[in-house]
């Protein structure tokens, strides 16, 4: 099983990579001991979005399916969490609400994905259909301001959004602040490791082969539609996880979390980071979210313009992604250095052997 952590589909392997990984993880774990609670809460907030980025990386970078509708599943699970948490009575049932809302998002992905993939929709049309679906949901939720729009005790509230749900709670302990931060870190580690193992497994081999040449993959006996649907459901489930965590974090959700600007964000994060690699996406999305959050404090418009500029720069200068490109440069530099270091050592060994003879 552990062999799957290092494989051809993921950049970074071996002792040095995993040492760096553990060092970063250790820094993340001790961060709340030194930071104030506001900053820790902020960190927890932008870690929430990492799941959506990793899900899109799986679908787009590994599976070749550019979904412009990740916020559709984000919204379904976000609103789903609200509806369930309010109607189930809060408290520990919020954990069940979190799980169920992600399951609902995955079922929605299964239905939408089935019709798209079995209907032969691919390429740019995949993006168009998913974006349209997202916009339909955002517009629908926007017109639910009246009191007649409710599910049980949960009012949808139109553009003002749904509020009043409990945060994640175990017994009488609310998972907020540092506790939420540690939950985010734990979930990110689990999801990252699980995705690495998935893409380096035989299933991952087929997912990547389908991205490269679906007809050839089918000619090897694989029903590529099932692999595409699996990828779509997992990626959408991760977007759903972000949505449910977002609602539990802020105890509100509005249609603007689903609309066009929100839907474009994951594309920018993943494109800038490097869609073909999970680690690049994890690191790049984290940096972008941190930067975006920092700039937003001064001007939200400036942050949005920066995102647009970054997307243009990525498309024109580094279509494979800036972070992935830099990662590859570091790996190449390291490999060259090792070869250079090994060459004199080999020459010395050869000279010693010839001296002995």
């Amino acid at each position, binding site marked *: 099983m552990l062999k799957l952590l290092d494989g*051809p589909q993921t950049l970074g392997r071996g002792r040095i990579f995993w040492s760096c990984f553990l060092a970063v993880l250790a820094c993340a774990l001790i961060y709340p001991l030194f930071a104030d609670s506001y900053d820790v809460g902020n960190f927890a907030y932008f870690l929430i979005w990492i799941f959506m980025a990793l899900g899109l990386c799986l679908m787009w970078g590994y599976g070749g399916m550019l979904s412009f509708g990740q916020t559709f599943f984000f919204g379904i699970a976000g609103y789903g969490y609200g509806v369930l948490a309010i109607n189930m009575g809060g408290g520990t049932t919020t954990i069940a609400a979190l799980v169920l809302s992600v399951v609902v998002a995955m079922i929605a992905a299964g239905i939408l994905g089935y019709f798209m993939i079995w209907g032969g929709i691919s390429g740019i049309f995949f993006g168009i259909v998913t974006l349209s679906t997202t916009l339909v949901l955002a517009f629908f939720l926007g017109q639910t301001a009246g009191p007649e729009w409710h599910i049980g005790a949960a009012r949808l509230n139109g553009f003002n959004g749904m509020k009043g749900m409990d945060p994640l709670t175990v017994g009488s302990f609310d998972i907020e602040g540092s506790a939420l931060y540690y939950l985010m870190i734990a979930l990110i580690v689990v999801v990252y490791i699980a995705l690495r193992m998935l893409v380096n497994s*035989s299933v991952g*081999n*087929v997912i*990547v*082969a389908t991205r*490269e*040449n679906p*007809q*050839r*993959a*089918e*000619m*090897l*006996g*694989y*029903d*590529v539609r099932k692999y595409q649907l699996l990828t779509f459901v997992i990626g959408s489930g991760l977007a759903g996880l972000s949505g449910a965590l977002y609602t539990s974090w802020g105890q509100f959700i509005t249609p603007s979390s689903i609309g066009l600007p929100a839907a474009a964000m994951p594309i920018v994060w993943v494109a800038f980071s490097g869609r073909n690699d999970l680690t690049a996406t994890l690191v790049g999305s984290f940096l972008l979210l941190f930067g975006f959050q920092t700039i937003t404090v001064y001007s939200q418009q400036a942050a949005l313009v920066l995102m647009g500029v970054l997307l243009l720069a990525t498309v024109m200068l580094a279509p494979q992604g800036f972070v992935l490109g830099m990662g590859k440069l570091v790996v190449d530099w390291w490999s060259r250095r090792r070869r250079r270091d090994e060459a004199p050592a080999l020459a010395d060994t050869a000279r010693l052997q010839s001296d002995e003879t």
Partner: protein
Amino acid sequence: MALVDVKGVSKRFGGLTAVSGVDLTVNAGEVHCLIGPNGAGKSTLFKLIVGLYPPTTGSIFFDSVDITAERPYARVQRGMSIKMQAPSVFKELPVRQNIQVALQERLSGAEREAEEERLLTLLNLAEDSSKLAGALSHGQQQWLEIGMALALQPQLLLLDEPTAGMSPEETHKTGELIKSFNAGGMTVLVVEHDMAFVRQVAQRVTVLHLGKIFARGSLQAILEDEKVAEIYLGKTHAH
């Protein structure tokens, strides 16, 4: 015993009838070549057999099972293996990973690794195994795809112009490779233009012309058929 039985198959694209009422039988254990001039409908018939096109009329049987409505992957799972006309490999993946994807359903662990090495050596690709498949020469890509098709250990190997773009030496080697697999019991259906290659491998030949069966028989009978030479090479060459 018939392994593939094509019964009354036609394929129309709008007003164009590419294949018309074709009956074709490929017996188990033979190397059967499908030849004909350009536009004869060979590749269309090939795609009908592998399931890339649904026939307008007629039925296709594999090992006595009606597979007419089955998708290509289901036909492959029944024991077919396919090499398309243009090299169809996973260009952005390493050569070894291409072979792995083909092998992983049948073998795992050390057995798979051993088979990988055997196939890479057989195809002269061992030294290039870590290269991206897209960086291989045209001929090497053809061999890689043949290797991927062989990795499935099929009952029936379907090859659409397997030697296109190969040098005469590579073509001859490919022919010998096909003969060795046929000697091991594999049935092979080849669509091919190159008559030297057909002479090297074929046991039975079917000639298509204008979407219909023009002639069929043993290699010798087809080679001696003046009408075949006439449609295939043109009248001036036939006399």
